[in-house]
C-alpha cells in the first residue's frame, strides 16, 4: 500500500484531518511522496537508511487506558509519563500542558524554513496521531522529566510536541526513551525559546533491538536565549537523531551534542544543523560515536551563516572510534558562510583505537581489555563530566559499563 492509500485508510484516526489548511498541507506532502518518491540520491534525510521498514509500515495506533501522569513531586520539578505519545492536560502558575492543537501544526508547517525536505518529518506531519504542548511561563525555573512509554508491539506513533520557554524562563528537561517492544516512534519536538530563556535538554535513548526511534527537533532561539541538547544513544534498535536549530535573534546560542554506542548490526543516523540568522550568536555541534561489531553510523553536521549574522562563532566536531574492522562511520561536516566577520571551524576524526596508547597502558601492567575500556571512557570523559544531574550521570555511567562489558 502506498503512502496516499495508507493515509486515506487511516484518515479518521489521524489528528486534524478535518482542518482544511492542514488537509491542503498534507495533500502537498502526499504529492512530494508520489512525485519524488524516496529518492536516496537527492535527499540527505534518506541516506544510509534501510527505508523498507519505514515505507512499508502498517499504520497502527492505540490510545492507552493507562492515562499519562503529571506529578509535581518537588517544588518546580515535574515528572511526566507520556503514554503512546499522549499526556494529560495540566496547569499551574508555572507550566501548562495541553494536547497539541491544529494551530500548533499550522505554525510549524508554515514557519519551518530550516528544512522542509525531510521525509521522516513529512511522514510525522501526515500521520500525526499524538503529541502535547508544554509552556514554561515567564521567569520560572523548572525541571521536567518525561518518560516516553510505548505500550504495545507493532504501534506506529507519530508524535509532535511543542515546547515554549517564555521570556526569562529556564527549563531543565530530561527525556527517557527506553522501550522494549516492536514499535516505531517518530517524534518531532518543536522548541521555541523566547528572549533570555534557557533550555537544557538531555535525551537518553536505550531501546531494545526491534524498537525504532526517529527523533527530530526544530529549535528556534530569540535574543539572549540558549538551547543545549545532549543525546546519549545506547539503543540496540535503530535510532535517527536529526536536530535542527535556528538562531533568529542576536546573542543566542545552540549547543547540539550527542554520543552513540553501537554494536552488533545496529545503525544510527545523525544530523545537526544550525542556521545563524542574527549577529553575535554561537553554536556548537559535537557528535562522538563508538562502534563495535558490524554497526554503522552517519553524522551530517551543518552550519549555515546568513549574511546578516556577523560575529558568528560556529564550531563543529565529529569523532569516532571503530572497535571492529566491520564497523563503519561516515561523517560529513559542512559550512556555508555568507557573512564576512565570523569564526567557524569543523573537524572530523574517525579511526580505530590508538594502538600506541594501548601499548603504553599495557606496558604499565594493564590488560588489553582494561586498556581498551579505559580509552573508550576517556574518549567521552568530557561529555560525561559535563552532566550536572548526579542521578542522570549515574544512570549513564551504568549504561556505559553495560556497553563496555560487551567489548572484547
Amino acid at each position: 500500500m502506498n503512502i496516499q492509500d495508507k493515509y486515506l485508510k487511516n484518515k479518521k484516526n489521524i489528528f486534524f484531518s478535518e482542518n482544511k489548511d492542514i488537509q491542503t498541507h498534507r495533500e502537498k506532502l502526499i504529492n512530494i511522496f508520489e512525485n519524488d518518491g524516496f529518492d536516496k540520491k537527492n535527499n540527505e534525510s534518506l541516506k544510509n537508511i534501510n527505508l523498507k521498514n519505514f515505507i512499508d509500515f502498517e499504520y497502527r495506533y492505540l490510545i492507552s487506558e493507562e492515562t499519562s501522569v503529571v506529578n509535581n513531586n518537588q517544588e518546580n520539578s515535574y515528572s511526566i509519563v507520556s503514554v503512546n505519545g499522549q499526556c494529560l492536560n495540566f496547569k499551574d502558575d508555572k507550566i501548562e500542558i495541553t494536547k497539541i492543537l491544529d494551530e500548533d501544526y499550522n505554525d510549524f508547517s508554515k514557519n519551518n524554513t530550516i528544512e522542509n525536505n525531510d521525509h521522516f518529518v513529512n511522514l510525522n506531519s501526515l500521520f500525526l496521531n499524538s503529541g502535547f504542548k508544554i509552556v514554561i511561563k515567564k521567569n520560572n525555573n523548572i525541571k521536567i522529566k518525561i518518560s516516553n512509554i510505548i505500550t504495545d508491539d507493532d504501534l506506529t506513533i507519530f508524535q509532535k510536541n511543542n515546547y515554549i520557554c517564555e521570556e526569562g524562563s529556564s527549563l531543565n528537561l530530561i527525556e527517557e526513551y527506553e522501550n522494549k517492544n516492536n514499535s516505531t516512534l517518530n517524534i518531532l519536538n518543536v522548541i521555541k525559546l523566547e528572549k533570555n530563556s534557557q533550555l537544557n535538554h538531555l535525551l537518553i535513548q536505550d531501546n531494545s533491538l526491534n524498537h525504532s526511534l526517529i527523533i527530530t527537533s526544530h529549535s528556534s532561539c530569540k535574543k539572549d536565549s540558549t538551547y543545549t541538547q545532549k543525546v546519549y544513544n545506547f539503543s540496540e534498535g535503530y535510532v535517527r537523531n536529526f536536530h535542527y536549530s535556528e538562531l533568529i535573534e542576536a546573542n543566542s546560542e545552540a549547543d547540539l551534542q550527542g554520543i552513540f554506542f553501537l554494536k552488533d548490526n545496529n545503525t544510527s543516523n545523525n544530523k545537526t544543523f544550525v542556521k545563524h540568522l542574527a549577529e553575535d550568536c554561537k553554536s556548537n555541534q559535537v557528535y562522538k560515536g563508538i562502534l563495535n561489531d558490524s554497526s554503522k553510523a552517519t553524522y551530517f553536521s551543518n552550519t549555515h551563516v546568513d549574511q546578516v549574522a556577523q560575529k558568528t562563532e560556529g564550531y563543529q566536531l565529529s569523532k569516532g572510534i571503530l572497535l571492529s574492522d566491520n564497523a563503519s562511520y561516515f561523517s560529513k561536516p559542512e559550512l556555508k558562510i555568507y557573512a564576512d566577520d565570523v569564526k567557524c571551524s569543523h573537524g572530523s576524526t574517525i579511526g580505530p583505537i590508538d594502538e600506541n596508547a594501548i601499548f603504553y597502558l599495557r606496558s604499565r601492567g594493564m590488560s588489553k581489555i582494561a586498556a581498551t575500556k579505559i580509552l573508550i571512557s576517556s574518549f567521552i570523559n568530557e561529555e560525561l563530566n559535563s552532566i550536572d544531574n548526579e542521578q542522570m550521570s549515574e544512570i549513564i555511567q551504568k549504561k556505559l559499563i553495560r556497553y563496555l562489558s560487551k567489548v572484547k
Partner: protein
Amino acid sequence: MFLEIKDLSVKIENKNILKSLNLNINKGEVHAIMGPNGSGKSTLANVLAGKEDYEILNGRINFKDNDLFDLNIEERAQEGMFLAFQYPVEIPGVNITPFLHSAVNSKRKRMNEEEIDNLSFAKLLKSKASDLGINIDMLKRSVNTGFSGGEKKRYEILQMSILNPDLAILDETDSGLDIDALKIVTDGVNKLKTKENSFLIITHYQKLLDYIKPDYVHVMVNGSIVKSGGSEIAAEIEKDGFQKFQ
C-alpha cells in the same frame, strides 16, 4: 642470568632491524647501549617491552627464568619489566592517579601481594612526586597531556619509582631535557638503584652516563652489538663519534 638475549633477529615491514644480537644482564647491573640513529636501539627496547609490530625471526630472550616470548605486554610489566618511553604517549581523559594505582595493583595481584588502598597509594604517590620535584597539581591531570618534554620524562621516572621494576629500560630518557631536568631525572634513577634491580640505558650521548654510572657500555651498530666494555667506551664515543665502529 637475569636477562639473557641470545642471537636475536627482528624485522619490521620487511626490514631487518636487529641481527643476531646478544646481551646478558645480571641482577644489580647497569648497562648502557650507545649507537647512532637507526642502529636499532629503540627497537630492542620495544621488543623487550612486547610491542607487537615486530616479527621475531630468530633467537630467544629469558627474563627471570621466563621465556619472554611467552609473556604478553602486561605480563612482562607485571613480572617487573619497565620501559621509560622515548616519546611518552598523551592520553587525554585518563587521569594519572587512578591509572597508576591500577597499574601498581595489577602487578601486586600477579605477585599474590595485597592490593594497595586509595589512601596509602595517594601518600606513596605524593612522596615520590615530591622527590622528583613534580608538582602535586600535575597528578590531577591526564596522562602526559599538555606536559612539556621535561615533564613527560620526569613523569616516566615517577611511574618507574612507583612501580619499582626489576629491570628498567630507559629509552633516550635524556633527549629533550635541559641540564637541570637531566639532573632531577638521573637523581631519581640513582635513588632507585639497588643490588636487586637492573637498568638498561639507551642513549646517544655520554652526558647521561656522567650522572648514571654504568657497569657496562655496549656499542650498537646496524642491529648488532659490536663492542662491549666499561665506561671508557662512552668517553671514546664522545671524543671520536660512532664512525670507527661502523
